[in-house]
């Protein structure tokens, strides 16, 4: 999981002010005790269409090479790859390599966004938002504790942008980043009670809090540029998949990217892969295998800035 990035001046891309070009490499290596005779995979490892992001290159290589690979766009518009492999294997490596340019978001004038009650009333009926106010597999209907937690940020008539930013910062401030505290199946209620977790937990928590008040929220899967400690070289594979939240702030401002793990609005440090209702919609790599016995998995992610740094 990514360490919170420290702010630095953004490099200037040749084309757009403040834009940054990245090369990302995401390697997933499975090892099995017994041969796997059949494997089906679903990968969300290519960057989706995004108003602030341009994709220059996206490749996916799978070793051993599967007999079947198909590509399509899912319901949310994310590119998704299906692959199936039926030759017995004890090791499987999936490598995704992408190059993207990320532009900074326009400044959010939080206090000018509409009041949250107005947003909630509108969101339930619009095509763009209707499904993102409803419970989903990993973000079930909010319990009382979560609803109370959320309500504290949204006093009557408060601007949606202000409440959402406040919530983002408070999760960062009050919750500990602790990879040992949770697994992917830890429920939101437990994250809220123990105040610790990783980026997925914080994203789900924040989505649950927003939806508890009828506010639309999306789960975003992607990468975060991290910086090595001062004076040390950047380690290979030290980065990781990251997850954050998009909150809908009314028809004018639309979806705003907020990173509760780092307590701030997303900028050019965040590379977007896919978004959906929660982790299940956009899981980077999901597989169903036959055989295999005990298995282990190693994930290595590198996010490198191009153009000089």
């Amino acid at each position, binding site marked *: 999981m990514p360490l919170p990035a420290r702010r630095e001046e953004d490099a200037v891309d040749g084309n757009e002010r403040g834009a940054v070009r990245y090369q990302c490499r995401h390697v997933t290596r*499975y090892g099995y005790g*017994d*041969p796997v*005779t*059949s494997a*089906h*995979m*679903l990968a969300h490892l290519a960057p989706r269409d995004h108003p602030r992001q341009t994709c220059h290159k996206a490749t996916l290589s799978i070793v051993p090479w599967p*007999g*079947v690979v*198909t590509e*399509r766009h*899912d*319901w*949310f518009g994310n590119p998704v790859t*299906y692959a*199936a492999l*039926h030759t*017995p294997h004890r090791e499987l490596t999936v490598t995704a390599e992408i190059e993207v340019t990320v532009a900074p978001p326009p400044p959010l004038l939080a206090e000018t966004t509409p009041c949250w009650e107005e947003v909630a009333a509108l969101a*339930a*009926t*619009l*095509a763009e938002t*209707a*499904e993102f*106010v*409803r419970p989903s597999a990993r973000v079930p*209907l909010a319990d009382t504790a979560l609803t109370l937690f959320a309500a504290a940020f949204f006093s009557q008539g408060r601007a949606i942008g202000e409440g959402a930013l406040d919530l983002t910062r408070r999760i960062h401030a009050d919750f500990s980043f602790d990879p040992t505290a949770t697994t992917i199946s830890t429920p939101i209620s437990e994250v809220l009670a123990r105040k610790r977790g990783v980026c997925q937990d914080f994203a789900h928590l924040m989505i649950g809090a927003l939806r508890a008040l009828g506010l639309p929220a999306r789960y975003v899967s992607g990468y975060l540029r991290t910086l090595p400690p001062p004076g040390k070289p950047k380690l290979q594979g030290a980065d990781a998949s990251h997850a954050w939240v998009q909150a809908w702030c009314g028809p004018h401002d639309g979806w705003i990217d907020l990173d509760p793990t780092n307590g701030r609005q997303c900028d050019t440090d965040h590379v977007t892969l896919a978004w959906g209702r929660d982790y*299940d*919609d956009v899981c980077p790599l*999901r*597989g*169903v*295998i*036959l*055989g*295999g016995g005990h*298995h282990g*998995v190693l994930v290595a992610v590198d996010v490198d800035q191009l153009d000089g740094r």
Partner: protein
Amino acid sequence: MEERWDAGRRLLFQNGVTYHAYADPQGVERPWPLDPIPLLLPHSEWLMIAEGLRQRARLLNRVLADLYGDQSILRDGVLPYGLVLGDPGFLRACHGMDLAAGARLTLVATDMVRDRTGIWRVLASRTQAPTGTGYTLENRVVMSQTLAESFRGCNVERLSPFFEQLRQTLISLAPRGSGPDGCPRLALLTPGPLNEAYFEHAFLARHLGLTLVEGADLTVRDQAVYLKTLGGLERIDVILRRVDDDFCDPLELRPDSALGVAGLVEAVRAGNVAVCNSLGSGLTDSVALMPWMGALSRHLLGEAPLLADVTTYWGGDPRQRAEMVAGLDRLVFRPAYSSMGHRTTFGPELDAAGRAALAASLRRRPQDWVAQEPVVPSTAPVWRDGRKVARPLVMRAFACATPDGDWMVMPGGLARISADERFASVTLQTGAGAKDVWIVGGAIGQPQRRRGLASLMPDGGGDSGPRAGDLPSRAADHLFWVGRYAERADAAVRTLRAAARRLSDDAHPGAEEELVPLLRLMGFNGMIPMEIAGLPQTDAVRGMRQALEIVADPANPGGLRATMDRLRRAAAGVRDRLPGEFSRVLTVLGEVASQPLKTDPAAMHLRLDEVSRLLASLIGLELDGMSRGPAWRFLVLGRRLERAIGIVGAFNGCGLGPGTAGTVASLSVLLELAAAGAAYRDRHPVGIRREPVLSLLLADDDHPRSLAFQIKTVQRQLVKLPPIDGEGLSVSPTLLANQLLETASRLVADPQPTRDPTALADLTDRLGRLLPEISNLLSQAYFSHAFARTT
């Protein structure tokens, strides 16, 4: 009436018509409660209903195609976005699939209730995997037999053309013909024997000629679906599924589903298999759609709806929600979306606290609720405890797509009796029974086609054995264990009968002495505790009485009933592979074994005779009622291996090893258990002697209960199975099994153990390890159907 109806109930019971009640903690099968009075509907009335049902099916098909396609009805504002996008039954993975019209919906069920004015109103539609056609057919078979004269006199419309149409439609949807002669290969996907409607799945599969499969039987390769059979992979073209939408594919739908097939969605997307009804069709089950049916009909079909709906409100719409809030004490509340279940809350029955809770829930998540105006139902006569009473009914009617894009409505249906006199609301779990629906008075004067009903009989008498399609590995596994458990039950009954006879018949010479080896054998087989099994002859009579009480106790996990239960469970998973009569005998056996055995030895002996006869009839069906295909081979392999293991156990249990003299008592018991008494006396009139007795039981391959006979039979059947080379294994398990059998065959032919107790002990010890190993090797070779898991 009552007397004739007894015959009907018996018929249903023996045919094993059951459904599971999930609410029942023991998950027992409950018999299907069929009411003897059919619901008669005049042909003229039915014509109008059927026309409405066809229209409704056409409409739902169009709605699904639109919502999983370009969603014009959302864009045009005919349906609210929130209603559809908030429905957990809207499967995003299935959006954008290009499907043939008939593949979207193949079978539609509609639940209707008749109000006081006589108008049939739609209560709900079932479009995902509608249940009930099989039960309807079975009801008809029973009704037409028990009420044969009335049935003929009423000129009742036949059901068979509907099922023929369903089969033809399924065939027409096949993207290609992968079966023999280029015919499509069709399968019925079931969640398995634990599902409440498993009976119907097996029944329909058999009736329509589909291979009954579970998710683990199938695999997706190259975006096509294959059945794992003993002979390899066989491609499947059409799947009639009874697994719920989101359980069908752990890769793209619910990751925690163990009932589905990984890659199935991709195979459908690639157009290589048709799944009926299409994945995602649970969407049109949602009651929340009902307030919009009229608008949808006008928008998509340009027609006013022909069927009246029960007035329904959806909480996601502010105006309708206001009606719901105002009608808390009047309306019937249900979950808006089908995937949230079908639990019903009756407003008038709520107390103040209940009403407050409902109002709070309605405020908190209004989209999740619908409410329906209560229908004051008309009633129909129902037979209860020997007299007629009036009860409301819910009728489930069925429509089937035809290849030309039209719909055929089944002339009949499943009328379910409401348990409550005031409300018409039923589910399979809570309903109080079912009625056959007779459409009468149509087609007067037309000669009834003779083949009509006969072709509907599930198995006209003798039955068939294996059907089209190949044997899935899972089915082979079940059949093998049906063989083993049937034989285990048989051996247990033989032992008990031998014991009961010696207790009840004092005149039997040596009776008390022979109780000693019987007790030891029962202890050895785990039927009784060892402290009773080891009692000396002086205490044998008392010990055996105690032993019989223990074995007869239905609650004892080592008792007779437990063995019968295991047999029944194994057979339940391969119901479609066994002769119909087999299931009927098992049903009766289960019934007999679940009654506590009388511990009075004479009564017990009589009961055991009955059980023994039933078990013998299973052997008869095996011999005479099944074709010699792979299904039969696995049944026989299981039985013979179990018997061989049992014989070796009997040698050990009866005490013929070193230090035990090999008494005449033990030898007599062994002869009796092997049904070899007469054969022995014919050859050796001088009396019981160790050497010839053992020689008969070990090496005489003409005697069907000798060890040599079992080993030879197993060898003969094993070579006829496809050999397995054991992918990833160093030695082929079938080769190894054959080698072990060869060794076993040499061991039993050796005369030394018949004379020498030490050699006999050595023999039984070696066989005791070798025979179970053969069983393990068979499992490894043929049954190792690994389950897929998500990573």
